[in-house]
């Protein structure tokens, strides 16, 4: 009997230690979480932000705010599940909503759009309560198609040049003209849309249009459409923190424009002061609590080795998300 009991006990202990140590911070990749206090997100950040004194950001020689440097993502469980939720399972901890407006923290889908969203949620096959036996769509991120808004949920490095803001991420880069040029035609669609930036006061404002509507905003199927427009606002609120805000508009599926907010911080600042972005790792005899490369963005090239996952998902019957066509 000890054979099984000991094994179960060891596994339970292992998981417990993982979650106790990793929570409330997610490990890169699939972390394991305990059923613990809800991870902070937009509501907590808005309270924190409201207490901050006024701040005037440093300027580049061209006289625009200097946002350059490496910035972390939102922390918590990131893009797992955007709306407020309690503990789902060890891969999906309780977390506050990313949605700062409307105040209820929910994406304001129209009734038709909400029904579609719930249908997608029920077909994810993640073992959650209330799922349908049918497997519908796997997350586009499983195919290395990052969630929108691009890079919002991961580290990036901002580089500014005359007339451009460049964002370097691990899975790609983003060039945002700020020279006043007009957007491309809405007849041309892209996974990550077409970005045009401008400076308004201390904020970098980026308008995103020409989205193809095939991506998701999180791993639970919160979707947008090819009619969706996004407006991001990047503003330094202290030397090491950017308030990231995005407004999402699409009256074909949302009852009103809605917003998300979270803080992006420089490595080694904020609630965690260690200069590392990764679980430190590790051989027992060579612990390394700091990532010496924390301020470097490394190309990930997700597609390079992304073989078994997509193949397995196809074998299970998952399909590509084909977008939605709102009723007339």
């Amino acid at each position, binding site marked *: 009997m*000890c*054979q*099984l009991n*000991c*094994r179960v006990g*060891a*596994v339970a*202990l*292992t998981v417990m*230690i*993982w979650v106790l*140590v*990793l929570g409330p*911070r997610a*490990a*890169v*990749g*699939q*972390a394991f979480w305990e059923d613990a206090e809800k991870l902070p997100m937009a509501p907590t950040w808005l309270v924190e932000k409201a207490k901050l004194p006024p701040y005037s950001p440093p300027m580049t020689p061209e006289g625009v705010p200097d946002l350059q440097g490496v910035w972390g*993502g939102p922390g918590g*469980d*990131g*893009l*797992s599940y955007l709306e407020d939720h309690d503990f789902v*399972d060890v*891969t999906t901890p309780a977390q506050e909503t990313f949605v700062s407006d409307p105040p209820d923290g929910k994406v304001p889908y129209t009734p038709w759009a909400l029904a579609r969203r719930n249908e997608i949620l029920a077909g994810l*096959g*993640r073992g959650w309560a209330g799922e349908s036996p049918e497997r519908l769509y796997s*997350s586009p*991120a499983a195919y290395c198609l*990052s969630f929108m808004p691009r890079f919002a*949920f991961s*580290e990036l490095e901002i580089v500014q040049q005359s007339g451009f803001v460049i964002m370097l991420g*691990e*899975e790609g880069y983003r060039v945002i003209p700020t020279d006043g040029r007009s957007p491309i035609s809405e007849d041309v669609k892209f996974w990550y849309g077409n970005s045009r930036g401008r400076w308004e006061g201390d904020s970098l404002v980026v308008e995103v249009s020409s989205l193809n509507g095939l991506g998701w905003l999180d*791993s639970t199927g919160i979707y947008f459409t090819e009619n969706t427009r996004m407006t991001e606002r990047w503003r330094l609120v202290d030397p090491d923190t950017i308030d990231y805000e995005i407004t999402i508009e699409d009256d074909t599926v949302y009852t009103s424009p809605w917003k998300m907010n979270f803080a992006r911080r420089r*490595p080694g600042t904020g609630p*965690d002061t260690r200069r*590392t*972005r*990764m*679980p*430190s*790792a*590790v*051989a*027992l005899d060579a612990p*390394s*609590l700091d990532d010496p490369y924390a301020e470097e963005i*490394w190309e*990930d*090239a997700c597609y390079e*080795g*992304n073989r*078994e*996952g997509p193949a*397995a*998902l196809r074998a*299970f019957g*998952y399909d590509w998300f084909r977008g939605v066509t709102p009723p007339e």
Partner: protein
Amino acid sequence: MFLQPWLREIRNMKKQTLELLGIFGLLLVAVPVAAHHSFAAEFDINQPIELRGKLTSVEFVNPHGWLYIDVENEDGTVTNWAIEAGGANQLLRRGLRETDFPPGLEVIVNGFLARSGEPVANGREVRTVDGRNFFLGTE
């Protein structure tokens, strides 16, 4: 059944407990990058698995690294298991190198079994018989 060869007693519980505490005591931080969250669709959290075998190869690639190990079955046959690990960037940032995983190295892997029924697992931790431990951290 398929898993029986690996459903074996974990010996030296006290020793292992100390090891685990040591390992995970070192896992302190992280700002997450994009987790793909296909984990729950591909692997079964309710089927933890322990495998012991010899490394045949390792792939340091993104978004997942892979360890391949030959595991001897009860009937004497050998199955080559694929163990999904963290991506090359993640492993490198943690200080791991391909040279840490030479072919022939005997390892014990803890992870979760793939839903496909194939000899594939999502690795959580790998231990070497000489006492080194690594967190594989995959997504």
